[in-house]
């Protein structure tokens, strides 16, 4: 079990409150992108492909807090861009901690050691550095298209742990990943002492025949099955065990695109973190005026057919935990036994 009890309790009471109130669509994790600027240029990363004047801009802390208050999600994930390049990241995090929001600061960790030494952050149970790690040295440096980043990230992790911060990792796996190398990577992260790991398949979209869509899903399920079917007791995952079972093909879920709403320079992104089909001015407008029936696997939308990404399906998994005794029991059993 790697999610702290206080965080579990906060999420559980939030979800049950929403259900008690009969709220059909509610957010679980706010994806807050204060800037698009980054110190890496990973292949295929759409977050940094903007003209210079956009990359130079960033949200104010007040805009960020306005979005956090408006949305009300108990967890705030701060991706980007690279959030450690945000000039007011220390003040933003302090304000979020004061609001008792659980924060996942998603960083490539290149600047982490420097920011920690500068005293930008204070350890808190509400703050976790979520370090982008796509595998061992060779795989990670290739994924971020730059040599040496893995070693810098490891340095950052060690420094953060030494100073008493919570540290997790987030890993995106694409088709072709070597299951045995991924398992070695899990061992390496546990050896480092991280609190837990987060996994997600990468998002890919291409127009393809039905059979190819089916095969892609099958290949993804097989990959995660080979990685997770005999997990080591020492591995800790900082995410819903039901989501991991979904990745392995043991569960069939529909997407919850409003579960992880995204706010950035352009407003509230429709419909989800991955697809960029327009922007709403307010969170309520996003919820009320997005044509949700056009998204998710059942919609037949080509862009959604192969998607198994955490930002759409982890919220579904969390909801299942609280939707039935069976979902709750399965979550407890998987959490206690460590078996996905």
């Amino acid at each position, binding site marked *: 079990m790697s999610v702290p009890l206080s965080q579990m309790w906060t999420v559980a009471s939030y979800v049950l409150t929403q259900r008690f109130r009969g709220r059909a669509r509610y957010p679980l994790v706010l994806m807050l992108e204060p800037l698009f600027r980054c110190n890496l*240029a990973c*292949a*295929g990363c*759409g977050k940094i*492909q*903007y*003209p210079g*004047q*956009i990359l*130079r*801009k960033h949200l104010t802390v007040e805009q960020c807090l306005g979005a956090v208050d408006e949305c009300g999600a108990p967890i705030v994930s701060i991706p980007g861009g690279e959030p450690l390049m945000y000039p007011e990241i220390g003040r933003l995090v302090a304000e979020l901690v004061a609001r008792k929001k659980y924060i996942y600061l998603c960083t490539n960790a290149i600047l982490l050691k420097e920011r920690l030494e500068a005293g930008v952050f204070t350890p808190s149970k509400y703050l976790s550095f979520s370090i982008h790690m796509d595998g061992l040295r060779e795989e990670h440096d*290739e994924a971020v*298209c730059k040599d040496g980043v893995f070693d810098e990230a490891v340095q950052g992790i060690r420094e953060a742990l030494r100073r008493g911060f919570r540290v997790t990792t987030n890993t995106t796996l*694409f088709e072709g990943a070597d299951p045995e190398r991924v398992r070695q990577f899990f061992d390496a992260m546990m050896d480092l002492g991280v609190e837990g790991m987060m996994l997600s398949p*990468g998002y*890919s979209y291409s127009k393809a025949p039905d059979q190819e869509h089916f095969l892609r899903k099958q290949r993804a399920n097989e990959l995660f099955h080979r990685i997770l079917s005999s997990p080591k007791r020492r591995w800790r995952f900082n995410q819903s065990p039901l989501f991991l079972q979904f990745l392995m093909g043991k569960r069939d879920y529909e997407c919850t695109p409003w579960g992880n709403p995204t706010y950035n*320079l*352009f*407003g509230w992104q429709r419909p989800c973190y991955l697809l960029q089909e*327009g*922007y709403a001015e307010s969170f309520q407008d996003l919820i009320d005026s997005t044509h949700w029936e056009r998204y998710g696997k059942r919609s037949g939308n080509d862009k959604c057919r192969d998607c198994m990404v955490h930002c759409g399906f982890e919220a579904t998994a969390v909801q299942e935990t609280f939707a039935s005794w069976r979902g709750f029991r399965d979550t407890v059993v998987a959490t206690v036994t460590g078996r996905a």
Partner: protein
Amino acid sequence: MEAEKSLEGWAPEPAAGLPLARLVDLAFDYRGNTTVVKRDGTALHGYVFNRDADAPAPYLEMFDAEGGGPHRVPYSDVRTVHFTGKDTAAGKSYAAWLARKQAEKAAQVADAPLP
């Protein structure tokens, strides 16, 4: 692999098969600055980040080239959109990167000395 096509440098005018709403959609998807040419002869150069064709008065939203804005421009004021800025996404897809890596590896194998 088919080469990725970019709209960079394209200066279309709306036509029967290419309505203004479609042009604005293309500008919204384009990862570079565009020039929004207005009916009064003026133009706004910048990044189109949003549009709503279903609104009672359809509009687009953009940050200008200096980062000012957002500016909201009704479709009714727009004559056309030209793709004048550099396409920042051109050739940077994951598929393109993968193809480059595979070509590099193939070249390394070809250049390796014979045993």
